[in-house]
């Protein structure tokens, strides 16, 4: 198999990139390990408020459907059930579909593998009933299974707010949110949101331990002043995300460490080119950001790829990238401004390899 552009990961960044590239006539394939496109969008029932203008306001699930339909109508090859498992000596990617393993040749590779959820360590974290919020969302919105009846959520952030609200809507009693930080360190607006939903937040707290026989039955919430013991059957962990970068490692991309982008991150330039000049990165794999940031970084990467493939000339590409970087700045404001600052310094430090 041979393509001009192979995209690793069919989540929002990969789909956005595939659409943009295919519209310009680039022979594009998406390698997606699951049997549907959309990635994390597929279990996001909440309305995504800050999508780029052309998408309006819609739920993740609706957006995933829109993307999938569009991608198949425009001639993108969607290799569902395919996983990049490694690389050959010359850097060609090796892909397996569960029956067979083969190389896929590409002029350019875009890695949009997204993010993974960080688990949290406390005694009892491995008990059934303790799960990440992503897992809880999959149960709720994809499998239509109630993950529990009495819940606590670890981590006070906008994602845990969404899931707490959804759990409540499904009849789960959310006993509270447990947050390490003190009340002053958390965004006021977010606290108000929890208050308006009547969801209690225990600040400066941690889960000391969880216990249960076959399944989690109790948690001990530890805080400076008091110890609370709660009877629950569900602990949802919202402990942040980190970029999934395995394909980039195997493609010999150089890495750096930037806390505000989610930890270890590939080095990249203003077109999201990595130190391996045929490999690009976008979306959460290029630093944990908001949904708009995910989509705009994908657009920037594709602009760079179109320029590299001589489909856009330098002037058009430059103009396009300027517009998109302005959009990205707008997307990454407020609590994402730290992400943007980190990204800018990463891009400024990037020196393309001498050829």
């Amino acid at each position, binding site marked *: 198999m041979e393509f001009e552009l192979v995209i690793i990961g069919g989540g929002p960044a990969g789909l956005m990139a595939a659409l943009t590239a295919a519209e310009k006539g680039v022979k594009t394939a998406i390698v997606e390990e699951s049997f549907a496109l959309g990635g994390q969008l597929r279990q996001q029932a909440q309305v995504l408020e800050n999508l780029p203008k052309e998408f309006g306001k819609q739920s993740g699930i609706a957006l995933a459907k829109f993307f999938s339909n569009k991608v198949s109508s425009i001639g993108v090859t969607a290799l569902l059930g395919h996983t990049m*498992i*490694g*690389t*050959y*000596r010359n850097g060609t990617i*090796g892909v397996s579909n569960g029956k067979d*393993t083969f*190389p896929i040749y590409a002029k350019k590779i875009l890695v949009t593998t997204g993010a993974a959820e960080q688990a949290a360590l406390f005694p009892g974290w491995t008990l059934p009933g303790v799960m990440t919020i992503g897992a809880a969302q999959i149960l709720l919105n994809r499998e239509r299974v109630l993950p529990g009846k009495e819940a606590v959520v670890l981590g006070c952030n906008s994602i845990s707010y969404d899931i707490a609200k959804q759990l409540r809507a499904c009849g789960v009693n959310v006993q509270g949110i447990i947050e390490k930080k003190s009340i002053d360190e958390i965004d006021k607006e977010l606290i108000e949101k929890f208050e308006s939903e009547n969801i209690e937040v225990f600040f400066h707290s941690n889960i000391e331990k969880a216990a249960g026989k076959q399944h989690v039955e109790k948690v001990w919430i530890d805080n400076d002043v008091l110890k609370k013991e709660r009877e629950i059957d569900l602990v949802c962990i919202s402990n942040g995300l980190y970029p999934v970068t395995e394909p980039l490692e195997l493609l010999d991309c150089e890495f750096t460490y930037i806390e505000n982008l989610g930890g270890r991150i590939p080095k990249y330039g203003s077109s999201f080119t990595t130190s391996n000049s045929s490999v690009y990165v976008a979306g959460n794999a290029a630093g944990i950001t908001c949904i708009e940031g995910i989509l705009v970084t994908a657009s920037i990467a594709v602009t760079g790829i179109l320029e590299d493939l001589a489909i856009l000339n330098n002037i058009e590409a430059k103009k396009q990238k300027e517009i998109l970087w302005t959009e990205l700045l707008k997307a990454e404001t407020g609590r994402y401004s730290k992400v943007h600052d980190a990204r800018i310094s990463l891009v400024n430090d990037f020196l393309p390899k001498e050829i």
Partner: protein
Amino acid sequence: MDKYVDIAIIGSGVVGSSIAYHLSESRQKEIIVIDKGFPLSGTSGSTQAWVWVHNKSPSWYGELSMYSAELYPFLEKKIGDVEYKRTGGIAPFFDEEDREKALKLAEKQAEVGIKVEVLNRNQVLEKEPVLSSKIAGATYSSIDGNVNPFRLVELYIKAAKKNDVKFSFYNPVIDIKKESGFFRITTKNEGTYTAEKIILAGGPWTKELGSFLGIDIPVKQVRGQILVTEPLAPLFRHTIAGMRQTDNGEVLIGYSKEEVGYDRRTTMEVIQDTAKMAVDYIPALANANLVRSFSGVRVIPEDGFPIVGEISNIKNAYLAVMHSGVTLSPLVGTLMAELLLEGETSIDLGRLSLDRFEKKSNGAVVQ
């Protein structure tokens, strides 16, 4: 900071650690082992760790390997359970015409006391029913086996520490000089050590260590890639040339050789080729899941045989560099301890001297 020791060993892999332990048994000397990284981060931690004898040729080399394998049960009594298992070793062949060569090998090995049987297909399948019926035959010996390399190195070091050997990890040696009869070893993090005797046991980095002393150590770096399956129910019990099953059920597979410098990457080409070898030998492995692959960079002297002993023009400087360090470590440790403490060895090391390479360049025939 300047510290004095009697003996400095550079390299804390299976060879360096074994020498340190064996030297420390008599507690006569002050010893330090210096390593650029952490034990098992190099070659000794990236091996299938066969204790392999019966195919080692010529027979004098097989004989050395046999003596070393014979030491393992005693070693375990001294340093603890290194999960040494004398499983017996099977080296299959697929062409009937190879039987002749197998018989010749068996004959040669018999001369030095290594008992090698040449099996036909039925005898192979009787020993290991999972092996492919396409196998024409195999050489077999009960002396072969395997060991857990992680436990082996860890326990060599623990036992040496108990005997007061000092270890310095994450501390690369950046220079070695001989001054008024003593070696001055400059390290990156702990200043200079002064040592009366020095042993270079740096595995694939030994060439670099030799260059500090102005000698060329003719070794190559040869990468091997190894596959690890998920834990499986006991599938086979022998060490099969190319693979073995560990105590926890994982099957380790691989016998690739690539000269690509110190490059620890794995590649899809070799992974697929290795998987092919595995399935050719044991068809049932087609259903096993590959969990990971890793590679190790072997150190192989130019002629394939160990270089062990004193460097003839640098008094008190010794070399211990070899492929098959796992198989040979009990013997090499023992012999080096004899050499440094008593000045002579129970087995003649003449054949293993670095000097053989010089002779070669003069046109003389070696061995």
